[in-house]
């Protein structure tokens, strides 16, 4: 029974890692992570994947955060009876309540993940227009007090790059290793669920 994972591009490598670990009969199909900058695009983009895939897969599971859709993504999934990994965003999928604790500790916390460190130039510099308008850095980041890198599989190179990003943004860096445990638990639960969900 092949499962189709419709995933945010920011979670692709990590979801594939979990699929491989359990040997699941599953494919992953990406939806651009950059949509989090244009939240109104997320639900239609996911729905497009659903329509393209539902005939070919016994089960579909969505791994995309609400990411500012204000509930539109969940409304779309409810129409098809498709489940998704719980969480407003990927930070929560990796770190759970720790995200809220860190925010409560310091409102001005800006988060990184392995993906964001790896793809900083495309998702942040280009995505937020800092490549074209470097003067916007102050507009975007002036209220932030620290960066917390929620690290999944941090190797030396990623940690070094996170330090460089922190230096560029002129913010102190804290690294918290989350691993994949929380995301893995959620995927396990969903994979144990109903056979056909649409």
């Amino acid at each position, binding site marked *: 029974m092949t499962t189709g994972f419709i995933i945010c591009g920011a979670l692709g490598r990590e979801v594939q890692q979990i699929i491989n670990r359990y040997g699941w009969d599953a494919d992953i199909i990406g939806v651009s992570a950059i949509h989090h900058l244009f939240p109104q695009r997320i639900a239609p983009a996911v729905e497009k994947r659903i329509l393209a895939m539902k005939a070919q897969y016994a089960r579909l599971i969505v791994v995309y955060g609400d990411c500012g859709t204000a509930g539109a993504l969940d409304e779309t999934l409810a129409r098809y009876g498709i489940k998704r990994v719980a969480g407003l965003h990927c930070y929560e999928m990796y770190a759970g309540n720790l995200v809220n604790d860190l925010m409560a500790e310091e409102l001005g916390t800006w988060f990184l993940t392995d993906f964001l460190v790896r793809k900083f130039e495309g998702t942040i510099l280009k995505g937020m227009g*800092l490549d074209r308008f470097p003067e*916007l850095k102050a507009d975007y980041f002036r209220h932030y007090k620290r960066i917390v890198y929620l690290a999944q599989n941090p190797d030396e190179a990623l940690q070094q790059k996170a330090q460089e990003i922190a230096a560029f943004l002129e913010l102190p860096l804290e690294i918290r290793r989350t691993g994949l445990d929380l995301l893995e638990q959620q995927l396990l639960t969903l994979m144990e669920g109903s056979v056909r969900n649409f």
Partner: protein
Amino acid sequence: MNDEVNIKDMPIDELLELMQDDLYDGYADEVVAEVNEALSRGMTPYEVLTQGLVAGMDIVGVDFRDGVLFVPEVLMAAKAMKAGMIILRPLLAETGAPKVGTLVIGTVKGDIHDIGKNLVAMMMEGAGFEVINLGINNDVDSFMGAIDAHNPDIIGMSALLTTTMPYMRTVVNTLKEKGIRRDLIVLVGGAPVNDAFAEDIGADACCRDAAVAVETAEKLMAIKREKG
């Protein structure tokens, strides 16, 4: 702006068109020069505002709504607008220029995210509203203090976090307790905020983005004026 262009020799309609183009492109220094040039030719501050900056921001708003421009470009245009407004604002106050309405806007308590809120503030100013921008992390006292001080037509509240958006209800409830809710238009916005939430807390509307905020504010102001 092309360095070869001499704005001193330019007819006034071309100068205004250039001002709109430079605002659209986010060229703050050029907009400042063009605003000063227009004023030096005897245009009133209100004419420069409406025929130059507001007209330029209108195009930005339409292109933002239609997906031609994105947040970085609109922020740059807003910065150019802001640079022009630094010159015009005191002159407008002196000359008693008409205004569409007054908006008090802020990010609610516990939230420091202000990009969207600042876009709304600048585009509302670009649409002719007087805007009092309270910044980030505003508690109910901050909103009430601004209402007392500025007697606004509209209260705008923004939140990016699901943990902070419930605070909007606290502000709306306080407006009700003070008996001033019906005197004010309440607009809310931010990534997790939707129409159902706005209705639930007793706001007038949820605005998906800055362009929608301007359209909604203008529409609700027109209704408010009709009601007298």
